[in-house]
């Protein structure tokens, strides 16, 4: 992931950090439809699709670069990362498709009524649980990037702000 940080501009990295935090928060809400309510669950999940596309666009250079080198010489971590990302994409697709198939609010809103299917409901539950595990692995494999970016763009600016304020107060 370190080469990805080097390739992205600070603005891109900052955008990605905020986007990822937003996706993570939305994921936590959508993972519990019984508490959030079915309407929030479905609309937020559909909105997350757009956020995930943006997430992929911001990692596009890495995706292309690893796709080209996948069969050649490539580090183990990048290879594992690439395979896990594909599995996450497939699982995310299954989650969205099964969600659409059992939709009770969003699809009827568009006038689309699909036949109720137990298989889709089971697949939806299964892919959600699998998605949680894979998100954990995805987070673990990008932990270095998360800690560095969090420190650079969230912690350090706050620390600088406070130290500047303290200096100003001391000067007065």
């Amino acid at each position, binding site marked *: 992931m370190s080469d990805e940080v080097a390739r992205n501009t600070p603005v891109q990295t900052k955008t990605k950090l905020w986007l990822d935090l937003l996706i993570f928060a939305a994921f936590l809400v959508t993972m519990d439809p*019984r508490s959030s309510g079915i309407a929030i669950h479905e609309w937020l999940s559909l909105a997350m699709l757009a956020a995930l596309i943006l997430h992929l666009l911001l990692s596009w250079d890495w995706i292309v670069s690893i796709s080209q080198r996948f069969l050649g010489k490539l580090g183990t971590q990048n290879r594992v990362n690439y395979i896990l990302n594909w599995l996450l*994409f497939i699982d995310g697709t299954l989650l969205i498709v099964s969600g659409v198939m059992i939709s009770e609010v969003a699809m009827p809103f568009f006038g689309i009524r699909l036949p109720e299917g137990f298989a889709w409901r089971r697949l939806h539950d299964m892919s959600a649980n699998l998605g949680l595990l894979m998100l954990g692995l995805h987070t673990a494999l990008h*932990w270095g990037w998360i800690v560095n970016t969090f420190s650079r763009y969230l912690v350090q600016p706050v620390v600088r702000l406070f130290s500047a304020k303290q200096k100003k107060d001391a000067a007065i």
Partner: protein
Amino acid sequence: MKTLGRILIILMVFAALSALMVVGVNASGVSASSFRGEGGEFRPGGEGFPPGFQPGADGNRVRPEGFEEHSERGEGRGGISGLMFGAVRNIFVIALLVTLIVWPRSVARKKRKMDAVKPAITEG
């Protein structure tokens, strides 16, 4: 234009995978129609319940195990506290996985660094 092309590629892969999944599930024959009778109702006396399913209180409706009587997918455990509980539980699962993967790697990296420093100290 470049971004639009990339979005199209992502959506095309998404659509292809979706189509494969719909075809796969339909071809496997595990759909709602498999669990219903000719009149669109489930027949408990027929070939028995599918694994993991049990009859509802009225004997006709079928819901997966673990589903509560009053809530199938929506409104149930309740508001913010339920949401917080769910979030904490999910964060715990993710944190556990992160710890299990990151911590041993961090220890191994530190050990490698120490091993690299040790000969330099003894040589010095």
